[in-house]
């Protein structure tokens, strides 16, 4: 279980407080008005922000002493998820173990309609295409906790539905604990088991 107990994170002069529980395999949507600290929470769990107090535990073990590299977390940033100087396929393979079969990546690319983009450079992609590439990698990496920061923001309604349904199915199949930051209620309905209002 992912447990966040009285977590305190400083943001400028303000201090943000968090408490939440998520079961293994549970998909949790995080909502709240802009600036309330949704992304801050994801960055703190991933280890990018120093914590002023409280604890983050995974399966009973505190993550606070672990570096970003040691935490069992896969994070999709709001933007800047791709290296601009290498092609999309190379980007997709990053963060995957060398022995992992490329087949799931190909299948995901097929489902999310990005197969023909794999040999291109990210600069040749639209915002929505880039988001789908980042999403595939974030969900297929072998990490039990997946954090998605507004992953569907730049998608058209049709692709948004497709990506949301694929995300839910993949997370459930992989028995991943997923935290999804979103402003859209429809994303909550399509992806999450429950929603948390910050």
């Amino acid at each position, binding site marked *: 279980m992912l447990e966040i107990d009285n977590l305190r994170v400083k943001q400028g002069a303000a201090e943000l407080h968090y408490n939440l529980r998520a079961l293994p395999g549970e998909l949790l949507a995080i909502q709240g008005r802009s600036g309330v600290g949704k992304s801050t929470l994801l960055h703190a769990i*991933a280890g*990018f922000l120093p914590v002023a107090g409280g604890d983050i535990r995974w399966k009973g073990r505190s993550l606070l002493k672990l570096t*970003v590299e040691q935490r069992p977390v*896969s994070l999709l*940033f709001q933007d800047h998820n791709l*290296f601009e*100087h*290498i092609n999309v396929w190379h980007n997709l393979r*990053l*963060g995957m173990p060398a022995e992992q079969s490329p087949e799931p990546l190909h299948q995901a690319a097929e489902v999310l309609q990005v197969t023909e983009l794999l040999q291109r450079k990210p600069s040749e992609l639209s915002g929505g295409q880039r988001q789908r590439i980042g999403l595939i990698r974030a969900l297929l990496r072998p990490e039990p906790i997946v954090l998605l920061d507004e992953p569907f923001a730049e998608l058209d309604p049709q692709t948004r539905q497709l990506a949301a349904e694929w995300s839910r199915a993949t997370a459930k199949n992989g028995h991943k604990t997923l935290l999804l930051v979103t402003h859209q209620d429809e994303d909550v309905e399509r992806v999450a088991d429950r929603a948390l209002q910050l």
Partner: protein
Amino acid sequence: MQRAGIAALLFSVLVTVLAFQGLIGFGHGGADWSLLSDRYYQSVLLFSLKQASLSALLSLLLAWPLARALYYRPQLPARRGFLSLCVLAFVMPTLVLITGLVALLGRNGLLSPLLGEQWNLYGLNGILIAHVYLNLPFAVRVMLQQLQHIPDSSWQLAAQLKLSRWQRLRLIEWPTLKPAVLVLFGFVFVLCFNSFAVVLALGGGPRATTLEVAIYQALKYDFNIPEALTLAWSQLLIAGSLFLLLSRWGRSHWLSVDTLQRQWIPQPNQPMKLIHAMVYAAGWLLLLLPIVALLPGVLEVDMARFGWSALLRPTLVSLVVGLLAAGGAMLLAYLMLTPVRQAHLKRQRKRALLLEWLSTHALVAPAMVVSVGLYILLLRQIDLDRWGMLFVVLLNMLMVVPFAVQQLRPRLLQYDAQYHRLCRALKLSGRQRLRLEWPFLRPAFIASFALILVLAIGDLAIFAIFGNEQWTTLPWLIYSYAGSYRIAEASLASLLLLLLCALIVWAFERIRLDA
């Protein structure tokens, strides 16, 4: 990697400290501070400041219209060739430039009759001309690079709002150029303030001497070590403080090539187009004249009877010394930047500033003091006749490291700003990170390598102290020819050295563009 970086920094600082120690130890004491109230010292200091300020000011003022012409008229003929020529001019071995300038504007120069009876190349005139020649092309490239960062949307908005030419200059061009101009002025000032060969060759006695030349004279003619140390500390303090301020002020893109292809630039009107074309032609003329001036001298050489083999070995020696020094400098610069990058990532501004200053301190440390100090220190420990060339490579490597650092740093910091978090989030190994970093760094790396290779090949000062006749380099051969009044041979060897440098710049620009 972090430890290797700190070790690289310590190594470079240690060499400078040991060199100073060598001089202090030999002189049985420190600097002679009473010199500060001496008239000679004050006039040398004033002249150093004056010529450096004027050189920097003129270089920038003349570079500005040229950069604008290149920016507004991307279709100018041979524009890419001109930009390559700018790199070549900036790194041109000083000896070649001086030979060219003397052939052009010296007592019997090609253009001297047009300049009247009063004309004299030697003194402030010659120093300013040579410094402007070396630094104007550099300023052109930095300013052009800066202008190319103006987004299309700004020009489109300006056009939509029907802004006048003056408004566009004030609201778009100048704010883009301002941060670079300040840093650029300081950088060119430091280069000219520390100038040695130009002032030595074209300076006119005590009234046109800089600190670096005064150090040389104090060591060579009087072997007055306390005086040399006073001058050296003064130079280190002034140039070092200024350089520290520069590091604080801002960033510039230095010699990286214009990669941004603009889609939408305002089209100048017909008279303006004509002005741009004339400025551009003047730029070509300015950069080519000293090179062309070498040709009549070359024609005087009896090609059939000339001992070409005399040029072959020095050329090869120069190349090998250059390649070893440049290769080592690139490695050293990359390693030195590791702790700098870490400090930036941890937002330790003061630490970053200090480490950056240390990594580039060779730019402000008087080269003459470093070479002579080390020579004195090593003389009693090592057989320098045998191992001297090793120190030629080592010192050249340390002297060009700051240029490599200046070029690699912005690119690596940009990489970290863009991708450091992503690399960590993806849990990439050190090897994976290096493999990802390389294609990003490659263009800057290649451009930087070419630049410092040419700088190292052109070295004369370090070879003069540590080198020997058995391993003569091409610049030393030119110097020897000129010293024995074999001007035709000197011109021919200068042209060969220039061609070698041009070939390197051209080849690396090709490789970089293909990369």
